[in-house]
């Protein structure tokens, strides 16, 4: 076990996997950085620092800086994947699915099905997402619900360095298009990472803690916020089953249902506006499948139905907070 943060886990996994498999290629804006400048390639990498050293090691044919052309980036990844490669395409901000959605949704995601199951499209799209850095309405969104809704895509959101490694490795060895979400506030989160080969199967939620009174389901940064809420209610002897989904497509329905069957009470935490959200998705699924186990209506803790504001205090008010999660936990417990 090595101690590293999520950024380091991603970088080292990319290095290891690209070494192992020469079909893996990387493309995106500034994934090299410095091209066409006096400083030269790798003078400075992308703004998230998640690809240093790759160009030097694997060369310009496998590590490709692109113009600001997200549709072309994702489309090129799709075409390369159909041509035997395993591209990793980087969207500097997940919000840029706005300018590239067609290639994700109508192309990558659908090839296998449309073409009669005779092909595969093993592409990984890395998307940097989430609020918390005052990056405002167009650079802070959590678009995982939109992509979870799309058949053909897998949607992955690591919250620990170990999972960052395990899930990215799994993504790179699998044969389906994977949307790999990296929360911009979590890059610095440190933790133990298993050495050597480490794959984390998709569709297996992580049991963050077991408490038995209320089931809290979360992903991304909301896992950490839920832990804070769990700590807060623990003082009153309330025990939380906290599940980190790890992947929202596939979804570990069994783990959620198993816990809810015990607790009878569910809180879903989702860093996004409420409508047609992952929170609603999970609440509805649980209600449909575990209705008789429910002692209280599932509570959804989401952001409001509004874009994300810039001002620090407004942004804080927008993001679901540990306090709001705590309130929801107490609310479902108090329900009779």
């Amino acid at each position, binding site marked *: 076990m090595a101690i590293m943060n999520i950024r380091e886990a991603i970088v080292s996994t990319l290095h290891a996997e690209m070494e192992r498999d020469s079909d893996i*290629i990387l*493309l995106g804006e500034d994934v090299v950085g410095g091209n066409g400048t006096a400083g030269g390639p790798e003078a400075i990498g992308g703004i998230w620092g998640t690809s240093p050293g790759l160009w030097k090691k694997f060369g310009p*044919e*496998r590590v*490709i800086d*692109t*113009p600001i*052309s997200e*549709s*072309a*980036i*994702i*489309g*090129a*990844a*799709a*075409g*390369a*994947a*159909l*041509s*035997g*490669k395993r*591209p990793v395409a980087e969207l500097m901000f997940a919000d840029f699915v706005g300018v590239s959605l*067609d*290639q994700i949704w*109508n*192309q990558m995601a659908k*090839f*296998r*099905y*449309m*073409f*009669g*199951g*005779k*092909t*595969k499209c093993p592409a990984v799209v890395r998307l940097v997402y989430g609020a918390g850095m005052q990056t405002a309405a167009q650079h802070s969104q959590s678009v995982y619900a939109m992509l979870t809704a799309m*058949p*053909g895509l*897998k949607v992955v959101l690591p919250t620990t360095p170990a999972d960052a490694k395990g899930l990215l490795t799994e993504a790179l060895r*699998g*044969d*389906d298009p994977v949307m790999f979400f990296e929360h911009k506030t979590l890059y610095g989160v440190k933790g133990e990472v298993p050495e050597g080969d480490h794959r984390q*199967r*998709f*569709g297996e939620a992580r049991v963050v803690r077991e408490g038995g009174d209320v089931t809290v389901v979360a992903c991304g940064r909301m896992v950490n916020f839920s832990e804070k809420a769990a700590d807060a209610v623990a003082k009153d002897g309330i025990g939380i089953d906290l599940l980190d989904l790890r992947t929202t497509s*596939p979804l570990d329905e069994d783990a959620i249902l198993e816990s809810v069957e015990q607790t009878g009470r569910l809180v879903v935490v989702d860093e996004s506006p409420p409508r047609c959200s992952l929170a609603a998705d999970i609440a509805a699924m649980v209600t449909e499948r575990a209705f008789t186990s429910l002692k209280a209506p599932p509570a959804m803790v989401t952001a409001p139905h509004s874009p994300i504001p810039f001002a620090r205090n407004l942004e804080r008010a927008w993001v679901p907070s540990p306090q709001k999660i705590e309130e929801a936990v107490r609310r479902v417990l108090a329900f009779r």
Partner: protein
Amino acid sequence: MQLNRDELLGAYRRMKTIREFEERLHEEIKTGEIGGFTHLYAGQEAVAVGICDQLTVDDKIVSTHRGHGHCIAKGCDVKGMMKEIYGRAGGLCKGRAGSMHIADLEVGMLGANGIVGGGAPQAVGAAIAARIDGKGRVGVTFSGDGACNQGTTFEAMNLAVVTKVPAIFVFENNHYSEHTGDAYAVGTSKDIASRAEGFGMKAWRANGCDFFETYAAFTELLEYVRAGNGPAAIELDTERYYGHFEGDPQRYRGKGELDRIRAERDCLKAFRARVTGAALLTDADLDAVDAEVLALIEEAVAEARADEQPDPATVADDVYVEYY
């Protein structure tokens, strides 16, 4: 360009196969048995064949909503295609694709595409892959005069120039995007190819209703691209003989336009005149091909009609390779 007898016969056979496939579909669609949108390629055969005849199976092409011609030229099974268009279980894509999404990766045909402009970046991806593989392979995208206005097409051209990969942009200018003329919709100082030139790409131009001219221009282009000079473009002046899709009343056409283009701009007639004139092939040679092709299409339709429908229980299969 010296094509031998077999090559000439092959080219003619493929062009004729496309033509008859489409002419027959035009009739079949009237029966009401074929659903969805069908965009016929008749009239543009010299483009698909003039280009694909020079590609290997390892070269990739990405096609459009008007993809039958590209499919046939690149080697897709004609009967599998007909079954597909009929929505049958034995279709090339098991009836999931229909006319608009036919693909066969085994012959390097990465897919027709219902999204105009959707394929262009994918061809750049194929070219990125080809360069890594280092065997001189190319990625080709076909785009119409309408598709050349999509942002993806421009982005793809720019990306190809920046990365210097062996991507080829084939602009099939049939002068219409749906019901609108290229004279209206394509903003240009000159033509479509000149926009590729604006990106710093070398571009060729040819009469897309003339197989030999198309072939020759593409020979030059292909040599240039295979030699590692980066991407290139070619614009082909061509015609579509039918409506935008089947059912289009085509009131945008000029008086007698369809008769004129059938009479004056028919790649099959021109091919026949040229090869018989130069005594490379005889009318009898070509007539024999015609007969074979007609028989093949007849069989394809019969087999498609006879084939069973897909099993509805499979409707949600094959979404993923593995979904746990």
